[in-house]
């Protein structure tokens, strides 16, 4: 055989081998399987016990909520048929829709909802705030229960229906009665998809099957409210941590959705005619510099102000997002683009001058104290932002030490209140979704109760804490909005943290998918395949 003929034969064989071209997962009946590249691991099956992103996404597929916020963050009934408010706002009566079932076939009852609320309220920040007002829960009947409050708390539906951090998912009574500090051992949910525990390989694979007993709402989907329709028979997550592999798998059709595509691969995905890129979470991700208020130099308010003068958010954002359309300057402590955001009091962020910052730093009495940045360099976004921060602080004349570490190390070290030479720290970069900083209740970084009460950094601003209490006590939305603005003005004076802007992230999916909708979380209901 001549070499040329041999090569021709090889090419012909390659073309005529359809079985070779079939992807690995096509061996299963994959007609109605939604295959998702999930960037974060599903390590735990308890979204109340841990706030890990994988557990939250698992929660939204597996469990349902009594109330859920729509795309305008307005709470809407979800499992609830509705609710009524009595006794000048001090009593809420919540009724359940008819026919709701758990994945083991048992009906969803008030007796399940109450311990679910209690367990969530013991762990979540907004939940803890709500529980401060709760006097008692009372079962009226299997489908109706009463929440009695010590005083009116109009944010109760918003708390129960929140989309950020930890959500009030409804579990069977026996699961919900588990100590909030202990992980539940079952995965019996109330949501549109049933978790297939036998297929779960932590760190690699997870799968769900459509739960035929789920009754979705009739309303169209909006945010996390509305009809949660299981539009496929199966949902599968593949945990692919390597970006190039994830992209290749999506392009080859082995996967359908990539939840968090790497920014540097966007041009390749944009050029692929089979792929669509979509800004799914319109509120975006907000980044901030968290300062340690208990140790020099940032225990000096004037030094915090001086540093803020040097901040040009664009410098930070361009380091992590090459597409200018996905960058948003946000001179607010609340998520820009949501009703609570404004630029009130943000003058210090308008300065954007290294020279003025240098002068202010000198006037503040900065004496060369070391600034230790906890840099989570394993994360490309947080690592890049830490590097920009290091450069900025050097340019204004600060003595900076950027310490590289992984998240677990940072999570431990940021607890330290010691001086930097004894294992302490000065600042770290963190990022939260827009839903996490919507208002003073959910924005944990705005806590300023000092050591013991505040978030890491332990800002100490009694005026800010008083305003926060007033906000929680406020009777009507207009009053709350005013106090919310006052909180921001005060926060720009004491700077519990410094906002450095936001970026929007896109999901990448194959064009044969239908029903992709805007959503503040990674929810996979309503998504089908043509």
């Amino acid at each position, binding site marked *: 055989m001549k070499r040329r003929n041999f090569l021709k034969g090889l090419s012909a064989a*390659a073309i005529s*081998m359809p*079985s*070779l*071209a079939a*992807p*690995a*997962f096509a*061996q*299963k009946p994959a007609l109605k399987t939604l295959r998702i590249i999930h960037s974060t*691991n599903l*390590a*735990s*099956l308890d979204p109340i*016990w*841990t*706030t*890990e992103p994988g557990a939250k996404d698992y929660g939204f597929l597996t469990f349902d909520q009594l109330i859920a916020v729509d795309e305008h963050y307005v709470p809407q009934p979800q499992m609830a048929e509705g609710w009524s408010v009595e006794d000048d706002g001090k009593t809420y009566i919540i009724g359940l829709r008819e026919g709701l079932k758990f994945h083991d076939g048992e009906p969803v009852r008030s007796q399940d909802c109450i311990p679910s609320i209690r367990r969530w309220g013991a*762990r*979540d*920040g907004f939940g803890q705030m709500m529980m401060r007002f709760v006097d008692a829960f009372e079962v009226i009947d299997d489908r109706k229960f009463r929440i009695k409050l010590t005083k009116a708390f109009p944010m109760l539906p918003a708390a129960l229906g929140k989309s950020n*951090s*930890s959500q009030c998912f409804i579990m069977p009574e026996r699961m919900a009665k588990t*100590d909030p*500090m*202990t*992980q539940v*051992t079952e995965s019996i949910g109330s949501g549109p998809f049933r978790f297939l525990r036998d297929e779960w*390989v*932590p*760190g*690699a*694979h997870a799968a769900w099957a459509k739960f035929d007993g789920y009754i979705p709402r009739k309303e169209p989907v909006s945010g996390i409210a509305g009809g949660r329709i299981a539009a496929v028979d199966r949902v599968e997550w*593949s*945990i*692919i*941590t*390597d970006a*190039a*592999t*994830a992209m*290749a*798998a999506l*392009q*080859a059709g*082995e996967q359908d959705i990539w939840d968090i595509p790497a920014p540097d691969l966007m041009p390749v995905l944009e050029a692929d005619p089979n792929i669509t890129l979509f800004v799914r979470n319109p509120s975006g991700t907000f980044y901030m510099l968290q300062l340690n208020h208990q140790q020099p130099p940032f225990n000096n308010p004037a030094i915090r102000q001086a540093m803020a003068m040097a901040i040009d958010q664009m410098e930070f954002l361009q380091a992590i997002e090459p597409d200018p359309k996905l960058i948003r300057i946000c001179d607010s402590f609340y998520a820009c683009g949501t009703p609570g955001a404004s630029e009130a009091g943000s003058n210090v962020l308008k300065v954007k001058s290294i020279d003025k910052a240098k002068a202010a730093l000198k006037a503040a009495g900065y004496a060369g104290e070391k600034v230790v940045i906890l840099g989570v360099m394993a994360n490309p976004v947080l690592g890049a932002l830490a590097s920009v921060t290091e450069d900025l602080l050097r340019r204004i004349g600060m003595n900076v030490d950027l310490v590289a*570490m*992984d*998240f*677990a*190390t940072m*999570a*431990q*070290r940021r*607890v330290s209140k010691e001086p930097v030479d004894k294992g302490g720290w000065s600042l770290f970069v*963190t990022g939260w979704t827009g839903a996490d900083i919507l208002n003073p209740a959910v924005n*944990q970084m705005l806590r300023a109760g000092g050591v*013991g009460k505040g*978030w890491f950094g332990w800002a100490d601003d009694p005026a800010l804490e008083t305003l926060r209490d007033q906000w929680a006590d406020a009777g009507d939305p207009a009053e709350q909005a005013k106090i919310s603005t006052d909180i921001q003005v005060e926060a720009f004076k004491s700077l519990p943290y410094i906002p450095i802007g936001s970026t929007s992230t896109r999901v990448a999916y194959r064009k044969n998918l239908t029903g992709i909708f805007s959503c503040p979380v990674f929810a996979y209901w309503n998504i089908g395949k043509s």
Partner: protein
Amino acid sequence: MLIYALRRILMAIPVMGVVALVIFGLLYITPGDPAMVIAGDQATPDEIARIRVSLGLDQPAYIRFGTWLWQVMQGDLGTSIFSNQPVALMIDQRLQPTLSLLILAVLLSIGIGVPFGVAAAWKRGKAIDHALAIFTTAGFSIPAFVAGYALAFIFASTLHWLPVQGFTPISEGFWPFLRSLILPAVTLSLVYAAVIARVTRAAMLDVLSQDYIRTAHAKGVRPYMILFRHALKNAAVPVVTIIGIGVATLFGATVVTENVFAIPGLGRLTVDAITHRDYPIIQGVVLLSSATYVVVNLTVDILYTLVDPRISY
């Protein structure tokens, strides 16, 4: 021989105990706290402390080590802090992909490396010897992740012959199973095939220069008999040694390959466990890894006696 093997296995038990102690000590001094990762950003110090208590992380190190050791002696590797699943089950889930990848990579390495090395020694200074030099240089110098991406681009993304990622269990058919392993196994075997080829060539050159080979030539023994019956067998000891080392080293090298091809193996399990500070998994995998080293070394020692009758224990 049997007594020797038993003695070696018994000797391995204290070695593994020391390894376990060292690993536990290293984990103990490594910063990071799983309770904080679990609790999340909103947690108060009190909540974190309660989680630590519920996980037993508040106990002194010697009690935690003692508890774990007692569990291991009873055949229980413990429970994952995060997934609440038995570590033995999690390792079992990951064992098939890693072992399959390892076996295929070793077979490929031997299948490529030994014949290539023999041929290069036989035809020293000829084209095949130069080809071996190029192959080994490339094998040594191209990192596994570069080779992996290149192979995936050509054979998966462009030609669509093989899958880009993932692992298909053998229970779903031998061919789908093999398809999912071809690219990762080739990637993993490149460097070890180069090592084996180099060592085989050197060992063969040494043997081929011996007097008894010259005598065999003079007696008119056919070349392939000289090569495979007289030379290769006597050159086998260093080759077996390097294969043994390769098997043990490949166990660790699978981490990168598993990541590039998204294979749910032990390497990825270990990396995830380290990221989360899931101590029981890390300890379980390290124990398994050290046991593998012991078994491989023992196997190599026994193989010596088979390839060289002069060696006895």
